[in-house]
């Protein structure tokens, strides 16, 4: 099982064993990782699961699709490595992935 490390805005690290096929958002919610709201449950409808992807994994994670990109355009404090975690599906390739959660999703 791949391990995903969630890092709070204040630097606290939470390594979590994730299930292939689930998303980075779902793994966070099921493990009560703070900083991700995911109000819509993963429908790419609310932009409350924003994370920053570790630069080293940017290629493996890939680029956001149009819908996600336009949601991101309006999120707070967006950076070049911003993604909506409900759109990142976990696979063995992403073992070791590190994502940082913003202070607030609103």
């Amino acid at each position, binding site marked *: 099982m791949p391990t995903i490390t969630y890092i709070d805005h204040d630097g606290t690290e939470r390594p979590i064993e994730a299930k292939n096929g689930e998303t980075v958002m779902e793994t966070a919610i099921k493990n009560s990782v703070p900083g991700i709201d995911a*109000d819509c*449950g993963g429908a790419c409808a*609310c932009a409350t699961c924003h994370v920053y992807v570790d630069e080293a994994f940017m290629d493996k994670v890939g680029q956001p699709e149009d819908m996600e990109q336009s949601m991101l355009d*309006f999120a707070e404090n967006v950076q070049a490595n911003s993604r909506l975690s409900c759109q990142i599906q976990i696979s063995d390739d992403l073992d070791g992935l590190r994502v940082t959660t913003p202070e607030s999703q*609103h």
Partner: protein
Amino acid sequence: MDLSAAKKIVVIGGGQAGAQAVQSLRQFGYEGEITLVGDEAALPYQRPPLSKAYMKGELAEDRLYFKPAAWYEDNKVETLLSQRVEKIDRANRKVLLQHGGHLDYDAVIIATGSRPRPLPIEGADLENVFELRGLSDVEHIQPKMIPGHRLVIVGAGYIGLEAAAVARQLGLEVTVLEMEQRALARVTSPVISSFYEALHMEHGVDVRCGARLGSLKGKDGKLTHAVLASGEEIEADMVLAGIGIIPNVELAQAAGLPCKNGIIVDEDARTSDPRIFAAGDCTVRPLAHYARTGRLESVHNAIEQGKLAAAAIMGKPRPALDCPWFWSDQYDIKLQIAGLSQGHDEVVVRGDIEAKKFAAFYKKNGRLIAVDAINSPPEFIASKRLIMSGASVASETLKDTSISMKEIAAAAA
């Protein structure tokens, strides 16, 4: 009333609002007992996918649950599933369970949700006539979703249309009957109604507006035909009713809490009893940006009121209120709705309807009050902010796609 010393909290209802209330209570530092009573067999799960990806078979059941079973154990939340509450005894601060026994409380959160409005016609009890609200409904419906089967959907609301899209994609023959003269008549404007009618017809759905169902006909207790008021008979292997919901207010009403098409609550999701809160579909609440009260059937509302109730109990500052929002997925079209369009006096369309990428903005006295955004997330998100700030935006500006929504939002800020 200060309830921050509460030791026993009972949450009645295991839907999105109840689940959120439980999570928020723990998040806000509540350390006392929590009992979640739910009448379904399953732990709290997301309902929206039931008429979308889950019904289509694209989402595994375990992905519907908000939290795994271990979370409830780890967080010392007792879950009483397949249980109903008989009565809230306010004088003695007890919740009586239908199977016997009771729970003492310092505070109660009523999150009893709503139930589908039953078809008020002859034949509604025939085999293969379904409604869609819970996991168990999908369990019954899914085995009948066979290519070539003839499905008649009663009601062209969001649930009915989403189910129609799934059924077509699974290869069923689908007829949608709508009593009103257009689809989604209760919730949106004619421009959006026409768009969805055309979309479904394009995908081979027989959409019939102004068609009143008279009765359902069967043989040996099994459905065979939907019979219109006009006398026309439509062969049907299954019927799915999606004609709206009824808020579950009976418990609150019997306890003497004021209800009017919903349990009446204040800004903190509190009922007239300072120890009793209510959250989700079952409530009538103040609508912050609209200077009126109303009942919202939505994920946003369930989450927000769950948080509000938990915060009020714990004496925390009231969480920021969001603009009401909704969404619907049909075929490859995502509709995102912000705000409430009721009472609008102007509709402004931005974008290209033919290209299936446009938004309908609703204004009242010059102010933006709502948007229906079709495959147009920027229009949705920017409008949320504009609605909350009470901004006036010129219709000419909204129509002009050479000005981005980001610029429009920035200019109005």
